[in-house]
């Protein structure tokens, strides 16, 4: 991807009204997302959720779903406490983005997209905690955002992206391979520009930009390495984009793994088989969460801010 193309993409994204002038709560939400979880005041999140009646109702519904509810949750504050700030902000983010993208513009299956994004977020965060990475919630965010470029492409190059998905599913190959062939740029490029545009830190931008091409970086940071591994694990454990790729991964041989072990030797002690099965369970829960927030297969986004 050359500089000229990136510049063009920047121009297009800046002009994309639906994304740059997103729902009213997106900007304050992004501000909350840029902050470490333990520095976020609960009241601030409660206030944000309460601003939008539709979103508040959704949060209550999720908090009362069998997945979380121990007892009836009646207030937004109780809902936020039940779900946890981290989950609330990713649910809000999902609702916001769904509200931004017209139903007929989705190319990937909407729920599949959020399952993969939330799944990768959780795997990345769990891995981060296991190996002693100091900011697991940043890892969560990196996982959540890593594929956000797909949404940009769905809007900017709708028809061609449909073609990408169709050919990738036929060939059972990774989507970015087809993006390069058909579009000449990938969701990594688009995600990179959008994350920059939103003011996320370099590390997070890096994770969105290079999770499929670590070899482009002289010294990939731990965050992009973890996202790379998290993304792979999701794809081999069923959280992919509606088709099964042909793939064989030996995690311990991945460049990202080797790079990560240098900084976090504890990674070598992780029983990766057990980790995989534990993540299967977590992914099941995520799938349930996504369906309970967005509704199974419902076409239209829920946010209406």
């Amino acid at each position, binding site marked *: 991807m050359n500089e000229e193309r990136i510049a063009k993409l920047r121009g297009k994204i800046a002009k994309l009204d639906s994304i740059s002038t997103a729902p009213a709560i997106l900007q304050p939400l992004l501000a909350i997302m840029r902050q470490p979880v333990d520095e976020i005041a609960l009241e601030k999140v409660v206030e944000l959720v309460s601003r939008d009646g539709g979103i508040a109702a959704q949060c209550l519904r999720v908090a009362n779903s*069998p*997945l979380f509810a*121990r007892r009836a949750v009646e207030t937004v504050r109780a809902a936020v406490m039940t779900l946890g700030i981290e989950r609330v902000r990713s649910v809000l983010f999902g609702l916001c983005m769904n509200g931004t993208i017209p139903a007929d513009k989705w190319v990937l299956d909407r729920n599949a997209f959020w399952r993969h994004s939330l799944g990768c977020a959780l795997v990345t965060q769990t891995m981060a905690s296991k190996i002693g990475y100091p900011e697991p919630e940043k890892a969560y965010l990196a996982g959540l955002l890593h594929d956000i470029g797909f949404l940009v492409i769905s809007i900017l190059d709708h028809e061609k992206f449909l073609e990408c998905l169709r050919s990738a599913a036929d060939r*059972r*190959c*990774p989507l970015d*391979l087809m993006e390069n062939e058909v579009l000449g740029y990938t969701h990594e490029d688009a995600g990179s520009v959008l994350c920059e545009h939103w003011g996320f830190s370099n590390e997070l931008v890096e994770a969105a930009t290079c999770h499929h091409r670590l070899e482009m970086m002289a010294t990939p940071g731990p965050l992009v390495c973890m996202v790379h591994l998290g993304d*792979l*694990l999701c*794809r*081999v*454990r*069923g959280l*992919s984009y509606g088709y*099964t*790729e*042909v*793939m*064989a*991964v*030996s*995690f*311990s*041989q*991945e460049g990202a793994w080797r790079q990560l072990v240098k900084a976090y030797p504890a990674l070598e002690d992780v*029983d*990766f*088989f*057990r980790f*995989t*099965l*534990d993540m*299967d*369970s*977590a992914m*099941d829960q995520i799938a349930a969460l996504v369906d309970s927030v967005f509704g199974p297969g419902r076409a239209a986004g829920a946010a209406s801010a």
Partner: protein
Amino acid sequence: MAVEAAKPKLADAAGANSVAGTRDPAHLKIRDLVYRISGIYHSEQKMYLLVSSCSRRMSECGIATPSEYLDRLTTGANRDAELKQLLNEITIGETYMFRHPAQLDALSTVILPQIMKNKTALGLKRLRFWSAGCSTGEEPYTLAIFLNEEKQLAGWNFEILATDLNTRSLEASKAGIYGEYALRNIAEPLRRKYFKEASNNKLEVNDLLRSRVRFDRVNLSDDSKMVFLKGIDVIFCCNVLIYFDLASKKRVVQHFFTNLLPGGYFFLGHAESLYQVDDTFRLVHFPGTTAYWKAPPGAAAAGGGKA
């Protein structure tokens, strides 16, 4: 594939324990014990299976609480025997053909092409598979049907060796008569091609299918026999090693490593791992399944990288 984990229908209240925090800590300790001893791991989503296996053993033994049962498994006089009973309970349930399509998909898309490429370079057109612990034959016959249908194998010879320690199982395998349960995943055209009518609405494998599998009695702990099994490309050994103690398990797995050709693969049961048993094999993730790989010297990644 041989004997699989108990099926969900056996669970008394599937999902009743799905909310974390309501679980008896003794069950988690039993989970870890089972994992350490057998290599079978129950993730959160599969815990209900372990809970129901324990319940059945507990009522059999007249034990009221999971923590008492844990004591029986760890400090009881007959703890080894009880553990074996529990493992039987965990792996109970008949198996059926084509139970793990993800394994076959991995074979078809990555493993066979990779092995065939290596062999073609050596001028060879022959593949050897081994179902070690074939139980009543579902696994080797599944493999035989699958391989026979693989178009990429046109012009190749393949051989399937199926072994078990239990002579009764071997006899049932050779008889090759199966009911609807074992055949549930086999579509009509394949039934017509590989089976013939038997009594009681059952089907019997036909000569074509039978000719594809060679049965033999092998004790995996019998070193003198194990050293003669050579040149294998893929081994399946599902829920067999779980009954071995660590030292014997290590010895069997070392044999498997030698039995396999460089670049060969080894499949275990799908919740079963070699963690702390072996570090010569390389764990490889395929969509929906995992396998162990005997990486040829100097190899980078399985299948030449992802995708």
